């Protein structure tokens, strides 16, 4: 049953992660991809390191198949021995039979074990390769891709490839089993063999006609169940909004429509899968009837041993199985091909930002930052920064100030080499960032995001994220320094408190303090900080302000600043607008200049957006 709605049969198959993620995959491109030989080749590359496994698994499968073919054959001899038409004694035949069944049991285990291990290892490697590759792909590429889509590839596509691989070794076995049975049938009696096998083309034809028809139904069932599940998930995630807006009745009505459609699709798919059952049974009956009539005649006429007739009965009941599994494998293969295609798409994402050969390490204790004529943008022909020039000297704190869209965040991203500048040079510690190893750059430049990102796990693990070897005393010292210790200790589990769903159980201010502690513990030589102001209450804000002083002390800092206090304490203030520097100097200088900054300062505005208009006027 390809539809496999239930899953879980025989202890599993499918599985939640796989199925639900597969739902997230773009659906249009799924099934009708032809098997691309290039994908096979590339996939084969992943088998390379496990070649021995592969050879062993294949040999085991062949041996197992041979045993499977041999067993009914020995039944023939034991029947013949019983009726006395064979010269071989029954006990001899049965000892061979005994040997064969032991071998059967062993080989069944070995072949399945080897082929599954092989598939799992290949899949492990493949997934790891994707994951590792994604660590190196530039952020500009990642930004354009939704995490959900990537996850669909890492989970759903890898899963359907795994399903295919796990079954493909035994599919090879099935193919040999089919050939073996055909050979034995023809070998025992050519005429009877040919006649019996005449139902085979009919069966193949029936299946060939059935597959495209059924596939449409199966697909409809899959799609409708993914839309039902998506609707359920959305309603649960947004349940508060649903209730706040009294949408219960409306949503229920819409959901009922989806569920109804799903019911019809599922029943259609079940019709499609069950209709094959009588077809196969009727053809099996026909083959048995041929054996009875033609074989029976031959036995009557004395041209055929009765043992052969019994063996035929056994073989005929067997040879429909491999055909079924093979055609299922074919469908699986098509899906796997599409998945393989999407997997290699991920692996083929270009790595644009990588270490040059023999990169430089930053050794200075306090490096500075310099922008030389830097032009940069996210989309071609739409630069966000225009030939920018400025320097942050060692130990200096520089504040970047400017309205939304002025390019502040882009500047910080360039220092970390998340993106490559279009023109000009970004220099850290006297070297072009392109010459510095990414590892060294990461260790030198610390970054605090405006929206702190925390990982699931304990508070302790989150603080020492950058320095995984740090011990508890160091972690606590960092937390104390940024004034996070008190609120952490208010949790019953203190530092071992697990952060549910990326710290949703903390307020934004608290998350901010944790990310400060994390940055402090990593002891970066350069700190880049995107100051967060929004959503933080005045109470937490004071703690943050004091934590900032600790954080900024004694290193080179570049701060996207919103608070006047931070800005006033900076050694240099750079006022940006639309990717250009409009003014720079320290607080006093800028005040004395009686330019934009001083106007801003003397006005009672408390938001920077308010000065967007005067700035524009100034620029014009």
């Amino acid at each position, binding site marked *: 049953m390809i539809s496999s709605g239930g899953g879980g049969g025989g202890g599993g198959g499918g599985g939640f992660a796989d199925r639900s993620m597969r739902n997230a995959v773009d659906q249009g491109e799924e099934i009708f991809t032809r098997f691309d030989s290039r994908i096979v080749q590339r996939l084969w590359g992943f088998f390379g390191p496990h070649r021995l496994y592969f050879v062993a698994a294949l040999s085991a499968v062949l041996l197992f198949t041979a045993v499977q073919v041999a067993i009914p054959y020995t039944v023939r001899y034991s*029947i013949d021995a019983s009726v006395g038409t064979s010269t071989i004694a*029954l*006990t001899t035949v049965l000892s061979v039979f005994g040997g064969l069944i032991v071998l059967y049991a062993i080989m069944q285990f070995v072949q399945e074990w080897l082929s599954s291990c092989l598939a799992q290892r290949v899949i492990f490697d493949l997934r790891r390769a994707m994951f590792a590759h*994604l660590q190196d792909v530039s952020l500009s590429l990642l930004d354009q891709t939704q995490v959900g889509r990537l996850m669909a590839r890492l989970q759903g596509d890898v899963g359907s490839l795994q399903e295919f691989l796990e079954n493909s070794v035994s599919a090879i076995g099935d193919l040999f089993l089919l050939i073996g049975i055909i050979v034995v049938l023809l070998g025992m009696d050519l005429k009877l063999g040919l006649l019996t096998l005449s139902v085979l083309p009919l069966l193949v034809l029936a299946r060939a006609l059935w597959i495209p028809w059924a596939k449409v139904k199966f697909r409809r069932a899959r799609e409708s169940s993914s839309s039902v599940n998506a609707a359920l*998930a959305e309603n649960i995630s947004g349940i508060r909004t649903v209730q706040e807006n009294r949408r219960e009745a409306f949503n*229920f009505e819409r959901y009922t429509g989806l569920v109804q459609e799903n019911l019809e699709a599922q029943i259609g798919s079940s019709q499609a899968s069950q209709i094959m059952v009588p077809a196969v049974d*009727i053809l099996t009956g026909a083959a048995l009837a041929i054996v009875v009539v033609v074989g029976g005649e031959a036995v009557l006429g004395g041209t055929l041993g009765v043992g052969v007739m019994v063996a035929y*009965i056994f073989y005929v009941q067997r040879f429909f199985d491999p055909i079924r599994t093979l055609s299922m494998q074919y469908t699986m293969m098509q899906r796997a091909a599409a998945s393989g295609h999407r997997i290699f798409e991920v692996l083929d994402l270009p790595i644009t930002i990588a270490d040059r050969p023999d990169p430089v390490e930053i050794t200075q204790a306090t490096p500075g930052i310099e922008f030389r004529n830097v032009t940069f943008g996210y989309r071609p022909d739409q630069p966000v920064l225009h030939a920018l020039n400025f320097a942050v000297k060692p130990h200096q704190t520089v504040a970047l100030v400017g309205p939304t869209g002025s390019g502040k965040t882009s500047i910080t991203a360039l220092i970390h080499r998340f993106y490559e500048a279009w023109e000009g040079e970004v220099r850290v510690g006297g070297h072009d960032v392109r010459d510095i190893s990414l590892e060294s750059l990461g260790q030198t430049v610390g970054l605090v995001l405006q929206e702190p990102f925390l990982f699931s796990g304990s508070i302790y693990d989150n603080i020492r994220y950058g320095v995984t070897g740090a011990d508890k005393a160091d972690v606590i010292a960092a937390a104390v320094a940024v004034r996070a210790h008190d609120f952490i200790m208010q949790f019953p589990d203190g530092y071992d408190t697990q952060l549910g769903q990326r710290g949703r159980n903390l307020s934004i201010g608290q998350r901010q303090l944790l990310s400060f502690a994390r940055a402090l513990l990593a002891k970066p030589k350069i700190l880049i900080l995107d100051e967060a102001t*929004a959503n933080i209450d005045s109470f937490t804000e004071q703690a943050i302000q004091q934590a900032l002083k600790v954080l900024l002390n004694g290193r080179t800092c570049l701060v996207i600043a919103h608070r006047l206090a931070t800005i006033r304490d900076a050694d240099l203030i750079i006022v940006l607008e639309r990717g250009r520097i409009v003014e720079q100097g320290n607080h006093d200088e800028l005040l004395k200049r009686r330019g934009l900054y001083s106007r801003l300062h003397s006005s009672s*505005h408390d938001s920077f957006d308010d000065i967007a208009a005067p700035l524009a006027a100034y620029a014009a």
Partner: protein
Amino acid sequence: MNTVASLIMTAQPPQQAAEPTAARVDVKAMPKILGRLTRLALRYPIWSGAAVSCALGAAVFNLITPRLLGQAVDQAHHLLVDGQFNPAATHAALLTTALLIVGTCAVRGTLTGLQGFLGEAIAQRVGYDLRLAFFQKLQHMSFSFHDTNHSGDLIARGMLDLEGVRGFLETGVLRVITLVLLLGVGSWQVLRADLQLGLLSLSFVPFVIWRATQMGALLRVTWNRLQEMLSNLTLDMEENLQGSRVVRAFASRSFELAKFDRIAQAALELSNRRIVIRMGAMSVMNLAYYSAMALVLFFGGRRVADGSLTVGMLTEFLTFMSILQQPVRQVGMVVNSSARATSSGRRLFEILDAQPEIADVPGAKNLVIDQGVLRLENVAFSYPGSTRNALTDINIEVSAGRTLGIVGAPGSGKSTLAGLIPRFYDVTAGRITIDGQDIRRVTLQSLRRSVSLVQQEIFLFDTSIHNNVAYTDPWAQEERVIEATSIAQLHEHIATLPKGYSTRVGERGVSLSGGQRQRMSIARGLVSQPDIIILDDSTAAIDAATEQRVRAALRDAVNHMATIIIAHRLSALKDADEIVFLEGGRIVERGNHQHLIGAGGRYAALWALQNRTDGYLGTAGHPLEEAQVS
């Protein structure tokens, strides 16, 4: 069953005890839950009856084939035994048998197919009923339920557990019936034909059932643990990608890869263990089956040789065994799916049996708004399971056209208070009235239609901007939506988008900034034209100038509303008719701005703090905003 349970208990490492569903198969609850599930299927008595009849028919016809095949072998072989030969009669007999075989196979196949289809159809219908019941139940469970039940867990119940239950109904029940029928009728048939050979050909059955049961239960347990590991792996990869900036900022590539290896390796080992369990059991079961066959061949063969048994009879026993083999082995699957259905069924029924804490009282009337006066009288509230009062002695009044401001430190009870008014929670003491009607006595539908609560974080649905704004009232006219977005100062922005109001939220490149999302939230709250609107810190991410415009527009456009504003930024509150200062769930100061400043208390201190020259100079930009403006 007891042996299975004890076996599984010992097979589990003790640290798994904390995860009852994952750690073992709950044998005790099984009959009750499976019984309840089966009763759900029996709500379709005609379908169920038809399915069982088909299963019965299929089993009977399945058992006829060995007899026919044995008969055919005997017919063909007769000559050699008796020495009598009547070609015409034998031909006719063979032909008749052949036709009977084709007929039997056709009927058997049709009935098997029908039985499969009916089983699936019933399971799908039950699935349909459960889906709707589950969805409806969740929609009516109150906030306190959703506070304690993780949305991911609820989604898993609605998807996975539902499938688990359905899978059991689809195959489990009918498989058991088929097996019982085959074993019962078949045993009677073969034992009657020949006691010794009958017993021999059935000898593998008890052993295989025992092993299959064990395997099914063990596989279930390992499967659960594997799923847990795989979801850890998913979480790990997802977080890594979502936090890619942090990962790179800390140069944590190798740390992340090591973490991945550790989790993935553990999952790999466990799934290898699963294969060992499964294949170990399978090969032993096959060995048992073939050993029984060897015994039948040996004893049967000797008796054929001495003439006390015909070859046809021997063939009949052998084919009977091959028919029985499949369903007997499927016992493993049945056990597995029963175990799954037990834990899934329990998780599903837990939700379906839950009673919403907040619902209409019998005879609840629609809320009638006249003056639009909202009053909280001596209100106290504590969250379920908490001994501490989140709110104590709250007395507030606000009427149409007037504004109440609420301020206080985080955790002082501001949002809790806001949640009481649309009755997301019920007060523990005191009462809340609107125009004199206790809100617990009116219908939820009418209450929530009159009260809009605008939260700090908006939940956006994956649909157009229009549908998101008009979420409260899907049939709202375009003008009403535009009116709402205009008040929220969002219309101009939407108008600049190439697809305007049809723009899909979250479509690449049109993500909204924090401030825009909040303005959208306000617009959504306005579409239904509520009588009372509560803005719960919903302007924090909006810059001060825009916020002022929003407030002005709110005042101008809708002076018939009673407005409650909760804010950290006092400038947002200073024009309110009354401001209350909350601390530890109590009102500690109240009055208008001038009064509170004059009083020189906490409010005045906070005002001074926020208006120092080193206060905000903040833009409330979204960090990604820059990347998206172009």
